[in-house]
């Protein structure tokens, strides 16, 4: 957007609105941090305050007690998670750009039919295919491994393919025509022209895949039983699980865990912004200037 010539009161107005919304969105996060620092006494009574009144770091120390051994080897879980996350990101970035290109730019008379088929795979709630899919992976001998969490990522998800396709359709047509005149075949166009242009979309996909794989609970729960193969999210669920039927949990520990779990996501996002939003990588400067 062009906005260099903005008046100062325009700017002020925007900042005020930004801060107001920011405060509302940040408030629950603040509350989370405050709870994570509450001491034992406060926790037993569960009477938490919005701003931290005490700084009981033990909640955080409990988490990082024994990195690779004991009942909760956080280090091992972290490596497992990293393994799943990295492969998932590669799988999703590759498959969604590849498949989306087919749907966006290839010509085939039943293309729309296939596209609708792709969309329909999103429409059946995953909870109902949980067990059949489990049986498939069990038959492949992959029960109690991390592969059932990774393999599907290489087949692309309808959501990501759809999104990338929408992004590709907005690419000016002249770019393709020029490339075709240069004698590139479709694969060449995909690799040399399309991939660089949809990088912002792929960055978004990478960030979302990261978030999803990082926090996924149901997948690891179903497929993994050994605690040495847990992912962080699953291990965290066990660490913070209620010890009794009335569901009393150590709320501070849950919040401390959640906070720690979201730090890598914040870092990734903060760092990925440059690819997500930077005009130099997007469509803006690549074509018509």
């Amino acid at each position: 957007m062009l906005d260099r010539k903005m008046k100062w009161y325009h700017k002020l107005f925007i900042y005020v609105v930004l801060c107001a919304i920011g405060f509302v969105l940040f408030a629950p996060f603040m509350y989370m941090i405050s709870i994570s620092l509450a001491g034992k006494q406060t926790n037993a009574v569960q009477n938490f305050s919005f701003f931290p009144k005490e700084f009981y770091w033990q909640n955080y120390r409990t988490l990082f007690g024994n990195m690779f051994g004991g009942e909760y080897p956080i280090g091992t879980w972290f490596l497992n998670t990293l393994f799943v996350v990295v492969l998932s990101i590669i799988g999703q970035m590759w498959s969604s750009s590849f498949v989306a290109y087919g749907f966006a730019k290839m010509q085939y008379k039943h293309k729309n039919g296939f596209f609708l088929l792709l969309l329909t795979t999103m429409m059946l709630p995953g909870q109902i295919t949980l067990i059949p899919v489990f049986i498939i992976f069990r038959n492949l001998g992959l029960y109690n491994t991390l592969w059932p969490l990774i393999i599907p990522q290489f087949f692309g998800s309808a959501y990501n393919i759809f999104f990338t396709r929408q992004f590709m359709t907005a690419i000016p047509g002249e770019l393709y025509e020029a490339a075709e005149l240069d004698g590139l075949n479709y694969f060449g166009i995909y690799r040399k022209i399309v991939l660089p242009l949809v990088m912002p979309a792929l960055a978004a996909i990478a960030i979302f895949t990261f978030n999803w794989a990082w926090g996924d609970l149901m997948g690891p729960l179903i497929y993994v039983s050994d605690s040495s193969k847990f992912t962080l999210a699953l291990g965290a669920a066990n660490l913070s699980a209620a010890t009794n039927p009335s569901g009393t949990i150590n709320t501070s520990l849950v919040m401390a865990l959640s906070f720690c779990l979201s730090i890598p996501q914040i870092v990734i996002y903060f760092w990925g912004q440059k690819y997500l939003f930077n005009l130099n990588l997007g469509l803006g400067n690549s074509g018509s200037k």
Partner: protein
Amino acid sequence: MEATERKTMDERNTSMAKKRERMNRNWFFFFISPWLIGFLCLTAGPMIFSFFMSFTNWDLMTQMKFIGIQNYVNLFKDPIFLTSMKNTFLYAAISVPLNLLLSLGMAYLLSFHLKGMRFFRTLYYLPAIVPAVASTILFTNILATNGLLNKALSFIGIQGPSWLLNKNIVLLSFVFLAVWGVGATMVLLLSSINSIDDAMYESATLDGATRMQMFVHITLPQISPVIFFNLITGIIGSLQTFTQVYLMTKGGPDNASQMIVPYLYTNAFSYYRMGYASAMAWVLFFVILILSVIVLKSSSAWVFYEQEVK
């Protein structure tokens, strides 16, 4: 002589067109093959299987019994299912447009090149990455009768209701939760706003267009494919709402916040009714399908494609 020549030319043209068509088709399948293979190996089977299950009363452990369309008949006599249908649609009808409007507004605000934008972008995205378990605990605390929200409301002299205990407004709690997590939608819109070619704005500025005009005539059409994407996935996602309900209210009070997928999940995994749950899933499937096709058909009227999808 001339005639025959033209004939062979025509023949060559049609055969070339055919060849090109075949080549295009091959390219198409080449590109979609990763998805197609995954679909055939991992998705199609379970989908068909669950469809078949919906005509049985199977519990996955004992012998399967074929019962025809009984599950579907029972569904429409099940008051809890009907309530959850109503709740799900109501929730989707409120949260999808609201979410879209808010994220669009926020994305627009964040697209200005001002100092500190990176900070705000991260701030706005924060809620989207808080684990569901944590955000649910937070929101049960915040929405409690004496919770943070009502305390804030009392500052401006409003006495807030019991959000989670009142049957009539409990659904709003999930709208709050959805609005709080608006960051994810915002990111997609923002990244597509930022990919718009600056030259378009520049030439519009030369023509003396106002900011508002530029937003309506340049920004909106340019990002309409992504808006369309958010609309479709928003509809699908909200109709499949699960985690929030399952963790925050368990559908209570008295099923006033029960929705289709949590009810389906409870039936499948607590009541041992896989067949019945499958029938629910397929009813939901067809509802989503119909809505999606309607939106899809309408899209040609308002979604702007740079290079029309042929």
